[in-house]
């Protein structure tokens, strides 16, 4: 069983005994299947194979990051194998769903364009494992996931960043309600990178936008917002809660400190992936302004943010 996703100008062949279950409407993947994208033919071909066998971890491998996945009561670990390849393992715990009874292991060699995954019958685990696979595949292609809620206003994307619970989704909803010509692109994990045309050596250098795009993805957290489109990235805004609304443009160093924690944290523990992430941010920060908005969850916060980004 297989299908091809078109995502950020790349074709991803997803193949395996359990992958058909991902095409159920509402899970996020079907809008990206065979979506019209002239770039896909000429673009990078990536492959994700589920149902494979993967070498077990050994003591020689270096564990880079261990983190919980509470939604499935699971534990994840990301390692650098002794042979230079990467391993990601998602292990069920005593409270995990019955279908998720065995660890799922993933193997990837940077530059190989192919990720192998052991059989995974639990749909939630498979969705997350695919997200992790995509982050391993995309980062060397100068594309990164960002933990953000992202709206589009008059054709330009604005990302809202911040720790979980600080109000990213709330702020997006305030834009949708109070700022005309706004819609949601993604509520949890868009991709960001140079536009597909620019990455393939084309692109219009007289374009006045930043040259960086935000891409809708199949992963949108709790909000089913699956948009197989991209928009020029106008700005990023880090949010924090405060009793009064105020906004400030960040310096390059501050902007880096604001954005870097919103990139996939497990990858930042690896030297090669960290360098790739820093490289993407370095490019992005030369043309995308980053702000810090201290705010209440009210309409004025959205208006202040909109006014500053689009009219100042």
């Amino acid at each position, binding site marked *: 069983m297989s299908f091809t996703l078109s995502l950020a100008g790349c074709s991803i062949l997803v193949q395996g005994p359990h992958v058909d279950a991902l095409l159920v409407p509402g899970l996020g993947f079907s809008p990206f299947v065979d979506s019209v994208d002239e770039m896909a033919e000429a673009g990078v071909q990536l492959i994700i194979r589920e149902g494979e066998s993967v070498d077990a971890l050994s003591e020689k491998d270096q564990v880079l990051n261990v983190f919980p996945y509470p939604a499935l009561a699971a534990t994840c670990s990301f390692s650098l194998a002794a042979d230079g390849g990467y391993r990601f393992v998602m292990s069920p715990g005593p409270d995990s769903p019955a279908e998720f009874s065995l660890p799922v292991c993933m193997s990837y060699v940077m530059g190989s364009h192919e990720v192998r995954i052991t059989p995974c019958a639990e749909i939630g685990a498979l969705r997350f494992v695919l997200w992790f696979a995509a982050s391993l595949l995309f980062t060397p292609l100068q594309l990164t996931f960002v*933990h953000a809620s992202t709206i589009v206003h008059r054709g330009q994307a604005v990302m809202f960043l911040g720790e979980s619970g600080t109000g990213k989704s709330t702020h997006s909803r305030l834009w949708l309600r109070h700022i005309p010509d706004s819609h949601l692109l993604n509520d949890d994990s868009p991709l960001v990178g140079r536009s597909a045309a620019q990455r393939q050596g084309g692109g219009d250098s007289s374009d006045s936008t930043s040259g960086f795009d935000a891409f809708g993805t199949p992963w949108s957290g709790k909000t089913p917002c699956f948009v197989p489109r991209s928009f020029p990235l106008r700005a990023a805004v880090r949010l924090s809660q405060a009793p009064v609304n105020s906004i400030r443009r960040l310096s390059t*160093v501050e902007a*880096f*400190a*604001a954005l870097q*924690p919103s990139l996939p944290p497990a990858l930042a523990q690896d030297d090669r992936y960290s360098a790739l992430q820093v490289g993407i*941010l*370095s490019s992005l920060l030369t043309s995308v302004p980053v702000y810090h908005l201290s705010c209440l969850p009210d309409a004025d916060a959205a208006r202040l943010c909109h006014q500053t980004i689009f009219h100042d």
Partner: protein
Amino acid sequence: MQINTQYKLRQVAGENIIMLQGANPGDMTRVISLNDTALYLWNSLQGKDFVPEDLTALLLDRYQVEESTARRDAEDFIQTLQQNKLILA
């Protein structure tokens, strides 16, 4: 003393940045930004075992300053590194 080799200098959009050990994912990453003088000292000390007098000498070598100024700047630089745990004794 030596600089902890775990910490790498990164070029980010024209700035020279060192990422410090973060807190939790999602918290602001703590970074140090090096100006030209700090960058010169950082690069000169890579892989070397040094004492504060070495930094004073490096500064006098490169800049037209009084020795007392160079010594103070060297001490400030070492203190910043120590406060941020970038130095191995």
